[in-house]
C-alpha cells in the first residue's frame, strides 16, 4: 500500500489550516492558540467550592434576581422547558419555578440560536447584509430585509423608484398575512388543537409560492436590494394574487370557525395573560401585542415609511390585552393586510424597480435609523457607516426579543399549561430573538 510510505506523507487539510494559523499568529505577534479547557483560563475560585454538589446551577448566581430564582422554597421545583421542548417556538429555554402546577417564577434563557448576525453584517458589504438578515425572523423575512434596505438607502442617499416601493409594500403585506395566519395555528397547536396549524400552513404555502414566483426563493427571499427590489412583478403574478386572495380568505375563515367561537379556546385564552397598556409600553412591547393592549401605535401610521402614507388604513386596537385579544388582533390585521394589498395592486405605478447603484456601495460616513412594522412589532435597524464597503455597526432591534420580557411579568400565578398559551399569543420567533 502506498499510504504506508514514510517519505510521502500527505498532510491532513485540518492540520494544514492549523499550521497556517500558527504561522499567521506568529507573524501578528500573538501567542499560541488556546483551546477550551486547557487550564490557561482562570483557576477555580474559592466561591465556586461546593457548588457542584448543589446541582442546579453549578456556578454561583451572578445577580440577585438569579439568586432568588434558584432559591427554592418548600414544595417548589425548577422545571426546564426547553431547549428541547415541543412548543418553545424554536430553541429557547424557559426556566420555570413551579409549586405543583402553579408557576411562581419564570426566567427566559436565550442564546441557543445565537449566530452573531450583527457581527457577521459588520463584515459583509451592504448588499450582502440584506441576505444575512433573512434568516433572523424567518417567519417575516421580507420585513427583515425592508428595514436594512431603508437604512442603507438613507445612508447612501438614493431615492427608490415608486414602483419598487409599491412592490415592497406588496410583498411585505403578503408576508404579514402568512405570518399572522401561522400565529393562529401555533396558538392552537400549543393548546392541543392540531388542525389550525395545517390550515395556516396551507395559507403559508400558497403565499410563499407566490413570493417565490417573484423572488425565486421560498423562505429566505433575498428580494430587496439597496435602491429597489430584485425583480419586477408581471400580470400573471397579479392574476395569481387574486386567486390567492380568495384562497387565503377561505383558510383564514376555516381557522376562525375552528377557534374564534370555540368554547375551549375562549375559555383558555380570555382573561389570560392580561397586559396593561402601561406595562406594555414600559416593557417595550410593540406591534400587534401592544395594539391588543389598546395602544394605537403602528409604525406604518405613526411614522410612515415606504408608501404607507398613501394607503388608507386604520390602526386596529383591542381593549382587553389578554391572549384572546392578541389573537383577535392578528385576525383583524390579516383582513387589514388583504385590504392594503388590494389598494397597492390598484395604485401600482409603472416604471423601473431598481435605482442605479454601484456593485459595491460605499456610503459616506453617517448614521441611519430605520424602523418598520413587522408582524411581531417594531423592527428597527441602526446602521453606521465609516465610508467603507461594510457597515461599521449594524444593529437590529428585533421585536420578539423585547417582547419575551413580558413572560416573567405575566406568568407567576398561572398554570404551566398557560405558559404556552401566553407565549404563543405573543408570537415570538426564536430566529429573531437570538439574532
Amino acid at each position, binding site marked *: 500500500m502506498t499510504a504506508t510510505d514514510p517519505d510521502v506523507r500527505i498532510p491532513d487539510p485540518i492540520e494544514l489550516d492549523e499550521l497556517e494559523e500558527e504561522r499567521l499568529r506568529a507573524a501578528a505577534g500573538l501567542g499560541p492558540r488556546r483551546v477550551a*479547557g486547557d487550564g490557561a483560563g482562570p483557576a477555580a475560585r474559592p466561591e465556586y467550592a461546593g457548588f457542584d454538589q448543589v446541582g442546579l446551577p453549578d456556578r454561583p448566581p451572578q445577580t*440577585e434576581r438569579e439568586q432568588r430564582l434558584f432559591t427554592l422554597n418548600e414544595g417548589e421545583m425548577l422545571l426546564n422547558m426547553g431547549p428541547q421542548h415541543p412548543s418553545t417556538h424554536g430553541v429557547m429555554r424557559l426556566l420555570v419555578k413551579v409549586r405543583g402546577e402553579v408557576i411562581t417564577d419564570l426566567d427566559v434563557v436565550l442564546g441557543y440560536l445565537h449566530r452573531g448576525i450583527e457581527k457577521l453584517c459588520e463584515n459583509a458589504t451592504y448588499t450582502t447584509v440584506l441576505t444575512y438578515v433573512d434568516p433572523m425572523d424567518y417567519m417575516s423575512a421580507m420585513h427583515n430585509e425592508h428595514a436594512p434596505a431603508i437604512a442603507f438607502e438613507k445612508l447612501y442617499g438614493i431615492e427608490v423608484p415608486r414602483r419598487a416601493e409599491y412592490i415592497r409594500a406588496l410583498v411585505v403585506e403578503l408576508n404579514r398575512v402568512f405570518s399572522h395566519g401561522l400565529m393562529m395555528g401555533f396558538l392552537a397547536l400549543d393548546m392541543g388543537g392540531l388542525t389550525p396549524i395545517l390550515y395556516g400552513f396551507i395559507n403559508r404555502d400558497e403565499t410563499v409560492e407566490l413570493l417565490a414566483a417573484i423572488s425565486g426563493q421560498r423562505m429566505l427571499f433575498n428580494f430587496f436590494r439597496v435602491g429597489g427590489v430584485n425583480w419586477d412583478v408581471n400580470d400573471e403574478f397579479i392574476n395569481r394574487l387574486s386567486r390567492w386572495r380568495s384562497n387565503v380568505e377561505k383558510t383564514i375563515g376555516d381557522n376562525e370557525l375552528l377557534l374564534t367561537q370555540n368554547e375551549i379556546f375562549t375559555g383558555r385564552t380570555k382573561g389570560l395573560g392580561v397586559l396593561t397598556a402601561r406595562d406594555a409600553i*414600559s416593557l417595550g412591547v*410593540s406591534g400587534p401585542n401592544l395594539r391588543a393592549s389598546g395602544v394605537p401605535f403602528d409604525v406604518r401610521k405613526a411614522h410612515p415609511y415606504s408608501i404607507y402614507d398613501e394607503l388608507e388604513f386604520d390602526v386596529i386596537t383591542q381593549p382587553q390585552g389578554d391572549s384572546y385579544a392578541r389573537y383577535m388582533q392578528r385576525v383583524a390585521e390579516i383582513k387589514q393586510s388583504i385590504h392594503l394589498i388590494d389598494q397597492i395592486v390598484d395604485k401600482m405605478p409603472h416604471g423601473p424597480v431598481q435605482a442605479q447603484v454601484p456593485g459595491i456601495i460605499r456610503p459616506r*460616513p453617517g448614521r441611519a435609523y430605520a424602523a418598520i412594522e413587522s408582524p411581531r412589532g*417594531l423592527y428597527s435597524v441602526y446602521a453606521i457607516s465609516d465610508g467603507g464597503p461594510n457597515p461599521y455597526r449594524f444593529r437590529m432591534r428585533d421585536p420578539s426579543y423585547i417582547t419575551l420580557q413580558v413572560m416573567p411579568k405575566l406568568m407567576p400565578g398561572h398554570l404551566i399549561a398557560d405558559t404556552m398559551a401566553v407565549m404563543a399569543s405573543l408570537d415570538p420567533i426564536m430566529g429573531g430573538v437570538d439574532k
Partner: protein
Amino acid sequence: MRLLLDRFPGTVSQLWTDTDTVEVQVPRGQIVDTLRTLRDDDDFGFFFLADAAAVDYGPQNWFEVVYHLYSDRHPAWLRIRVRVDRKSPHIPTVTDLWEGAMFHEREMYDMMGIVFDGNADLRRIFMSPDYRSFPQRKDFILPDDAADSAAAGVNPLERPETWDLSRFTDALPATETHPGSDETAVEAGETLADKSRPR
C-alpha cells in the same frame, strides 16, 4: 425640536438634525435625568424606548450607548448618544424608566461589556454564563476568545482583568481594523448629518 436645546442648556453637548432623526449627545451622568424628562414632560412625550444599542468606537477608546425614542406628540424619533469610557465602561441603568430596557442592557453587557450601574439583573443573555469575553467589540478575535469559554469560570461583573483591554491597543494597530472612523469629523465640530445628507 430646537426645544431640546432650550430645555437642556447644560446637558446636551451636541445636536444634529438628520433627514428624519434628531440626534442628541448627552453626558453619561445626566442620561437618566434627561431621559426621564423626555419621557414625562408633556412638551416631549417620548413614551416609547424603541432601541438601545452600543457602538464600539475602538480607536477613540470609547463606547457609545445609543437610545432611540419615539414620541407621538411630534411625531418623531429621537436619537440620544452617550459616550462611555472604554477603560471603565459604566453607565447608569434606565430600567427604572422602562422595564423593557432590561434585555437591551443585558445584550449590551453581553456583547460589548458595558456595565449598567443599578441594573438588578445584569448577566449574560446570549452567550453562556461562563463566557469571558465580549464578542461584538471590535478587538474580539474569534479563536482566542472563543477558547476562553467552556467551563473556564464565571465572569462576575466586577472583574475587569478579564476584559483584556490591552490586547486592542497592543496587538492590533487601531487603523488596521477600522480605517476612517467617522468620529474624527464629529470631534472637529462638523456634523455628520451634514455630510451624509442625500445629494
